[in-house]
Structures are given as C-alpha cells and as structure tokens.
C-alpha cells in the first residue's frame, strides 16, 4: 500500500490547466524528485497535494484515506507538510515563534524544538531574531525546520535551493541528507538536474502539466531526463 496515491489529478489556475491527469504513487520511505521546466506544474502539484490548491478533478489518497476534500490544516494534522516556494516565513515573528506555530498541527514525534535546532545549528543563535532580518539560507533553514516540527509522514519540499547562494544550498542539502537517508517520505522539486538524482531514490519529470518520465534515480540517464525536461522525447 502506497503512502500517497494521486489518481487522475487535474488542477487549474482559471483557464490555464497546470496539472493534467497526473497519476502517481509514492511509497513510504522513498525520496522522490520532481523535475521539470518552469511552468511544468510542479509547484501546483505540490500545493494540490498539501491542500493549498483545490484540484479540479481526480483524487488524492493519503494512507488509504481520501483527502481530496480536506483543507490544508486538516492534511497537516494527518501528516502532510509542505515547505512552500519562496519560504513564506512570518516576517514580523521571531525564528522561535515561526517554529512554534507548528504546534498547531498537534503532532508529536521525533522533531522537537531542541531537535531541529540541533539539525540546523545555524538557527540556535537566531532564535529571537525576526524572520525578516535573516539571510536567504537562514530563512530556508527556518522554513524546513518549521515544516519538520509538524512531524510529517510526508514532507513536500518546493525548490529549497531557489534564490540561495551556492554555499547556502550546500548547507541546506547537508542538513537534509540524514532525512533523505532515513525512512522519511519526501517529495522534492528541484531544478538542478545533476542534484536531483543524487539525493532521490526515484525521479519523475513533468512537462506541460503531465508526467512524462519516471524511473529509479540510478537507472535514468542524463539524456533521458533532459529529453523529457525539454519535451524532445515526444517528437
């Protein structure tokens, strides 16, 4: 039984259909990388899974339960957590206050305030700093820590490297590596085609709202991925 199953999922932004007929199963414990060009529908797909975007068709089944009609906060309470694109911290709240909001999910488990501060040691001295005065890397670490504090069973990461300096990206991925290697279930969107297979167990590629390629990270060649990425495989 898969942890997450998408059945013929459609999602729209007004007239634009961003996600078309996507069916996908995510197994417990795997790290799935979602790649694709800008506008391929990756962010919309993640937001639809998290409940931040209403699907226009299809079903989302999480742990054998149909969650298609549940709101975002209800899904967080079941264990789906999204680190949104652009980090979306509460700018006037301190780092610690941002982290404490996650208590609203009402889920306990491995991740506590002390535990995330240990995983992201750069945050410890910044606890009482307002989020708006953090650097990009510090903000991203806070956003990931905040999502982990909901103790998710499924973690969705949307472009955690976007807008960060290369060294900050390394820092974020170094902190995430133990998570990828643990039994956590992660779906991440990543633009960097060389990085995606190195952290993921499976790679799927989206093109114009559809899934066009899926395979184990070790088995796909770089050519296969780039062809799918740019839509050359169809021609």
């Amino acid at each position, binding site marked *: 039984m898969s942890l997450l199953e998408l059945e013929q999922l459609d999602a729209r932004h007004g007239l634009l259909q961003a996600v078309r007929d996507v069916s996908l199963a995510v197994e417990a414990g795997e790290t799935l990388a979602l790649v694709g060009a800008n506008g391929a529908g990756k962010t919309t797909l993640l937001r639809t899974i998290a409940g931040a975007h209403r699907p226009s068709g299809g079903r989302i089944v999480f742990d054998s339960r149909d969650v298609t009609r549940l709101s975002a906060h209800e899904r967080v309470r079941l264990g789906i957590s999204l680190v*949104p694109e652009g980090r979306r911290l*509460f700018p*006037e709240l301190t780092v610690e206050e941002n982290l404490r909001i996650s208590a609203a999910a009402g889920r306990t488990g491995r991740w506590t305030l002390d535990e995330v501060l240990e995983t992201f040691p750069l945050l410890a001295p910044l606890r009482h700093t307002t989020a708006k005065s953090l650097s990009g890397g510090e903000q991203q670490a806070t956003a990931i820590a905040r999502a982990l504090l909901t103790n998710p069973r499924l973690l969705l990461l949307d472009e955690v490297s976007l807008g960060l300096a290369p060294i900050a990206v390394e820092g974020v991925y170094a902190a995430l590596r133990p998570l990828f290697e643990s039994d956590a279930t992660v779906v991440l969107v990543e633009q960097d085609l060389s990085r995606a297979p190195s952290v993921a167990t499976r790679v799927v590629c989206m093109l114009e709202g559809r899934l066009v390629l899926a395979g184990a990270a070790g088995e796909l060649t770089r050519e296969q991925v780039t062809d799918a990425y740019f839509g050359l495989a169809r021609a």
Partner: protein
Amino acid sequence: MNWANAVLHGILLGGLYALLATGLSLMFGVMRIINLAHGSLALLGAYMAFLLVEHAHMSTYLALLPVLPGALVVGYVLQRTLLERSLRAGELVPLLTTFGLLIVIANLLEYAFSPDVHSLPSGRIGGASWRISSHFTLPWFDALILCIAVVVLGGLQLLLRRTQIGRELRATAADPDTAELLGVDARRVYAYATALAVATAALAGVFYAMRSAFDPFTGPTQLIYAFEAVVIGGLGSLWGTLLGGIVLGVAQTVSAQIDVQYFALGGHLVFLAVLIVRTALQAGGLRVLPRGASA
C-alpha cells in the same frame, strides 16, 4: 475648568475611546475587516447589561460577568456565520455586511427597547471625584476606565506575544495560507479574533452607558470616535490605539474649553490633520523615491 484640568480630563476620556477602539483595531489587524457594526455591538453589550440591571436588579459591574462571555459567543458565531462568508466573497463585502448589521442592530434595539434614552447606574464611584485644588479635579470613574483600558490592552499584548493562540493570531494576520500549511485553522483563529473584539466592544459599551445616556442609535457616533482613535494611533498597533484615544480625548476637552459646542469638532479636526499629514508624507515619499531611482 482650567486648561491643565481639561488636558487631564481628556487623557482620562482617552481611556474610553481606546477601549472602544481596541476591537476595531484587532479585527482590522487580523482580518482586514473594517467592522462598521463595532459601535452597535458595543451598544448591544450595554443593552444586555441594562436588561440584567432592570430585571434581575444586578449592579452594572456584576452584570459584566454574564455579558462578557455572552459577547465572546456572539463574536464567535458572528464570524462563523456571517463574516466568514463575506470574507470569501471579496474584500469589500465585509464592509457592506457590517454596515447592514449596524442598521439591523439599531432597529432591533429600537423595536425591543423603544427609542427612549437610558443610562446604566455606575454606583458610588460614578459621580465622585477627587478635588485636588479649586481648579483641579480627578473624576474617579474616568480614571477607572483608563485603568481598565490599560489592563485590557496589556492583557491583549501578553496574549499575542506569549501564548500559542496569540502566535497563531499574528501568523494568520500576516499570511493565512501559510498558517494553514502549518496546521492552523485560519477560520477558527478569525473567529477567536472577532470574539475578543466583540467582548472588548461590549466592555466599552457598558462603561460608556454608565457614563452617558444612550439610545438605540448611539452606536454609529461611538464608531466614529473609535475609528478616529485607531487612525490617529496608527492601524493595527495596540498601544498606538491607546495613544490615539488619548490624543482624541485631549483634543475634545481642550476644544470644549474654548467653547463647549466645539467638543466633537476639535477631535474631528485633529483626526483630519493627522490623516492629511500622514497621507502627504506617504504620497511625497512614494513620488520622490521612484523619480530619484530612475534618475
């Protein structure tokens, strides 16, 4: 009354305006709702207390014990039924909804209580004042209201800073979609905010009714004063609201010192002056910056 005494009385009066304005500021800060029915909800609290005083022969202070929890419930239900739907329909819809509510409340009160003017007994403290010198008096009741306003604002500040529900309120005010992604039920948080706002309004309404006579149409006038206090103090800032109330109160009592009929006018003029200066500063800033940047 001399000038200094007028200022002192104005400061004390500011407490009442701040108390009236707190809920207005809270609802605007959290949901961007301008609640035009705020004054009418305050009056509704006064009438509920009036009912208890008249029929159950309670003291007004004792009547607050059932009235305040009642107001919390009214606020919660109001948000979950009427305002939540209005918010979903667009930014301007809550303005229309609360305007309608203002009229409905006034007419229901008139129907239930007649258009007669009433007032609530304020006990021994009501008319008492401390005569410091021949020109200087300190009315105890107004001082009590100012103290209550400070306690209410301080309590709200603590709630917002130190508690989980306070953090959730601030997070939802900043970004409701992201708060939802962390497990916050934004609509329930909104309902808590409105419950708190209506309870502070009812508290202010009861104290207003102990101080002055009221009738079913007093609400809108009080709304204007509350609104002016919020704007003078700066939108969304709690201590700013207290300052705004005090500035408004002092403007009114000092103007009344010139001529009694200038009481309300003085407050309105200060409100307009603050508004004009603030808009001029903002407009000037906006105009100068892009030009400078493009040059």
